[in-house]
C-alpha cells in the first residue's frame, strides 16, 4: 500500500487484507478494533476533524466503541479537504456531481488501492454472485468512461469492474456525455439473440442514463427480451438530467423495454465521500426481502437526527456510515439521507412519493437542482 506514513500504511494493509479475503465475513470484533485504530489515526492526522471531535468532547481515549466515533457531515466535503495527508499529495480527487448553484464535494485519495479493494468484492457479491471463479461477465455501462470523466467515482468504479470482471464485449455506452443509443441498442439486440454466449449480463449505470436508454428504445418502438441471466444495477437520481420518475416507474419501464424484472434490478447506495458501496440484496439473496447490505468492513447506523442516539428497529432516522475503506479521509460520515434498519441491512427512505412540502419555501433539493457535473 503506497502511502508515505507507515502507520497509515499499516492500517491500509489491515483493511485491504480483509477486503481481499476470498470469504470475507462480518466480524464485529475485527471491525471495532480497526475502526478505533483508524479513528485514532484520523484524529491525529486530520486537524479539522480533530478540532471537530474536541468540540464535541470526544478523543480517541474516550471512545470505547466504534459507535462513539463522531461522524462528519457529508456536506463538509464540499467545503474543505478532509484528508489525513497534504491535499496536494492526492493521487486522485473524486468530486460530487455539483450543481449550478452550490459547490461540489471532493474526496481526496493518496492511493486507489483501498478504494478498489473495497469496491470489487461488493460489486461481485451483490451483482454477479453467479459468476464462476475466473469467468468474466458482459458488463454494459450507461455512464461515461473514466478517461472522459476522471473525477467521477462512479465512472472509476465501473472502469475497475469492467477491467477486472468484464469480458471483451463489455464497455461504456455513454460517449462525449451522450448515450450512444445506436451502439447500445445494437449491443442489446445482439444479446437478445444470444450473442453474449452464456456469460452473465449486467447493465449498469446512473438512473437518469437508464431513462435516456428507455426513451431511445421507446422512440424506436423496441422492446427487448434480454436473457434470463441479465440483471441491472442503477444508482443516483435524475435531478436536472432526465425526466423524473419513481423507482417503481423506472423498474416497470426496464421490465417492459429490456425484459428484466424488478427482482433482478439492484439499486446501489453510494456517495463520492465513501470508499464502499451498498447494494440491494435481490441478486445476492434472491427471495429475501429487498434491503441494502453492507460489506463486512462498513457499518450503517440509523440515528435520531436530534440526539444522535440509535433509532429503534424499524424507526426512520438519519443514515450514518462507518466505512473502513475511508482510510485517508474520515471513516464516519453523517448523511442527510433517511433510512431504517431492515433484517440485518437497511432501507433508504426517499422523500415520500408525491409528498408535499410543509410550506411554499424552497426545499434544499430544489435549490440544489440543475446539476452541472
Amino acid at each position, binding site marked *: 500500500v503506497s502511502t508515505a506514513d507507515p502507520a497509515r500504511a499499516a492500517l491500509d494493509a489491515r483493511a485491504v487484507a480483509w477486503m481481499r479475503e476470498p470469504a470475507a465475513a462480518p466480524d464485529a470484533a475485527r471491525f471495532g478494533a480497526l475502526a478505533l485504530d483508524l479513528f485514532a489515526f484520523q484524529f491525529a492526522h486530520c486537524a479539522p476533524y*480533530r478540532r471537530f471531535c474536541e468540540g464535541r468532547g470526544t478523543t480517541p481515549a474516550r471512545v470505547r466503541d466504534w459507535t462513539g466515533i463522531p461522524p462528519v*457531515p457529508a456536506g*463538509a466535503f464540499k467545503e474543505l479537504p478532509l484528508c489525513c495527508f497534504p491535499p496536494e499529495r492526492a493521487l486522485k480527487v473524486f468530486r460530487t456531481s455539483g450543481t449550478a*448553484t452550490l459547490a461540489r464535494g471532493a474526496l481526496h485519495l493518496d492511493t486507489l488501492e483501498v478504494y478498489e479493494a473495497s469496491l470489487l468484492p461488493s460489486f461481485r457479491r451483490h451483482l454477479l454472485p453467479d459468476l464462476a471463479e475466473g469467468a468474466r461477465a458482459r458488463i454494459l455501462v450507461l455512464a461515461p468512461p473514466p478517461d472522459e470523466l476522471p473525477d467521477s467515482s462512479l465512472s472509476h468504479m465501473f472502469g475497475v469492474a469492467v477491467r477486472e470482471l468484464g469480458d471483451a464485449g463489455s464497455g461504456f455506452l455513454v460517449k462525449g456525455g451522450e448515450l450512444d443509443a445506436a451502439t447500445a441498442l445494437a449491443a442489446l439486440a445482439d444479446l437478445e439473440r444470444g450473442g453474449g454466449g452464456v456469460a452473465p449480463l449486467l447493465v449498469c449505470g446512473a438512473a437518469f442514463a437508464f431513462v435516456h436508454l428507455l426513451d431511445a428504445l421507446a422512440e424506436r418502438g423496441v422492446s427487448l427480451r434480454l436473457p434470463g441471466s441479465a440483471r441491472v444495477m442503477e444508482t443516483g437520481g435524475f435531478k436536472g438530467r432526465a425526466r423524473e420518475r419513481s423507482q417503481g416507474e423506472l423498474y416497470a419501464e426496464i421490465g417492459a423495454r429490456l425484459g428484466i424484472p424488478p427482482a433482478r434490478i439492484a439499486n446501489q447506495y453510494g456517495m463520492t465521500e465513501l470508499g464502499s458501496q451498498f447494494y440491494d440484496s435481490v441478486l445476492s439473496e434472491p427471495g429475501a426481502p429487498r434491503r441494502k447490505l453492507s460489506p463486512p468492513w462498513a457499518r450503517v447506523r440509523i440515528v435520531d*437526527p436530534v440526539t444522535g442516539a440509535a433509532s429503534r428497529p424499524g424507526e426512520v432516522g438519519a443514515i450514518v456510515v462507518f466505512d473502513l475503506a475511508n482510510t485517508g479521509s474520515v471513516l464516519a460520515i453523517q448523511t442527510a439521507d433517511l433510512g431504517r434498519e431492515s433484517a440485518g441491512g437497511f432501507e433508504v427512505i426517499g422523500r415520500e412519493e408525491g409528498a*408535499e412540502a410543509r410550506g411554499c*419555501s424552497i426545499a434544499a433539493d430544489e435549490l440544489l437542482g440543475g446539476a452541472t457535473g
Partner: protein
Amino acid sequence: VTPAEVEARLAAVREAGSRLRGRPAWVTLDALGGVLDAFRDPRSRWRAELESALPEATGFSRATVREGLSRALAGWSGDALRALVARELGGPAALEPGAPRAAVGFDATAVLLAGSIPMPTLLSMLAPLVLLSPVLVKPASRDPVTPRVVARAIAAADPVLGECVAIADVAGGDAPAMDALLAADCVVATGSDATIAQVAARVAAPRRLVAAGHRLSLAALGDGATRGDALAAVAEGLALDVALWDQQGCLSPIAVLVAGGTAAADRVAAALAAALEQAEKRWPRGRIDAAGAALFAHERAEAELRAAAGRSVAVLSGADQAWCVVREDDAVPRPVASNRFVRVAPVGNAGSITAAIAPLRRHLAGVAMAGFGADGMALAAALVRCGASRICAPGELQAPPLDWRHEGRGVLTPLARFADRETHEAG
C-alpha cells in the same frame, strides 16, 4: 374520489358559475369581502376553527398559528379586496357583461393547493371567485383543514357563492382523477418545480395554467441596523419573520446579508440568536419530521466542522436544535435547512449584496431590508432587478398585503381574460 366524481363536481361548479354570472358582480365582491372580514376578526367562528384545528393537522404550534394568522390577516379586509379589484381590474364594473374593458373569469378554475400555511389557501380560493369563476379545490395533503373552513365560510356568507366551491381530495398519483381535475378551464397550481412541470405538461392551451413555484426570502442589513437599539429591533423583527410558520413560507428569510464585514455580522448573529431564543418561548417551534431534523442536524454539524477547520464561522443554537444561527464567513449559497435555521453572512457593502443574491434570482420572493439610509432606494431598485417581488422592513415579511404581486404578477389578472370593446355595434 373517482375521476367520474371529479368530473361531476367540475360540471356542478360550472353550472353554479352561470348563476353567479347572472347577478351583479358587486354582490359577489361584497360577499367575498365579508368572508375576508370574518377571517380577519380574531373572535370569528372561522378564525377559531382554524386556530383550533391547524396545530394538530399541520404540526405548527398553537401560538405560531395564532400569531401567524393575526399578523397576516390584519390587513386582509373587505376594503382591501375592493381596492385590489379597483387597482387590477379598474373596479367591479369590468366584470359586468358588456363592459368596454372587460375582465372575464374562466368558466371554472381548478385550484391545486400545497403546503400547510393557510393564507395562500384562502387567497387562492377567493381570487377566482372575485372574477366570477367557480373553483374546484384539491386540498394539500398537509392541510385538509383550511380549504373546508374557507368553503363553509363562503357558503355561510352567500349560498349562491357557496355552490361555486367544491373540494376534491385527489391523490397526486391518481393520474385519471388528476386529469379530470386539470380539465378545468383555468388551473392554479402551487408547488415545487417538479410538481409545476408535471402539471404544466398536462394543461394545454387554450386552458390556462397559473403556477406559483417554491421561493425563498432573505434579509439585507446596512450599517444603520447593526448596532444598539436599532439592531435589537431589527433582530426581533427578523426572529418573528423566521419563527412564524417555522420558516416554511416563501416569505421566510433563510439568510441575513450584512453589509459591513465580520464584526457587524457577529453582532447581528448574536442579536438574532437572542431574539430567536425569545421567539421560541413565545411561539415554540412545531413538529419537525425526520427529514427536516436530519437536514437541520447535518447543516449545523457541517458549519461546526468548517469552524473547526479554522474558517471564521460561528454556530449558535438553541436547546434541542429549536433554532440555529450560523455566522458564515462568506455569502456562498448553501442548502436551505428551514425549521428556524438562519445563515448570517457578511458582505462588503451594499453593492455586494446584489452580487450575493444573483445566483438565487430565479427563486427569490421577498427581501427584508433596513439600515441603508440614503443608499436604501438604490439597493431596493437593484433587489427588484434581482428578482425580488417584495421589499419590506424586518418583521413585516409574514404580513404581505392582499395585493402583493406574488411571482411578480397580479393577484387577479393572471386569472382573467381581458377584452376591449371599441365599438357599440353588435357585429
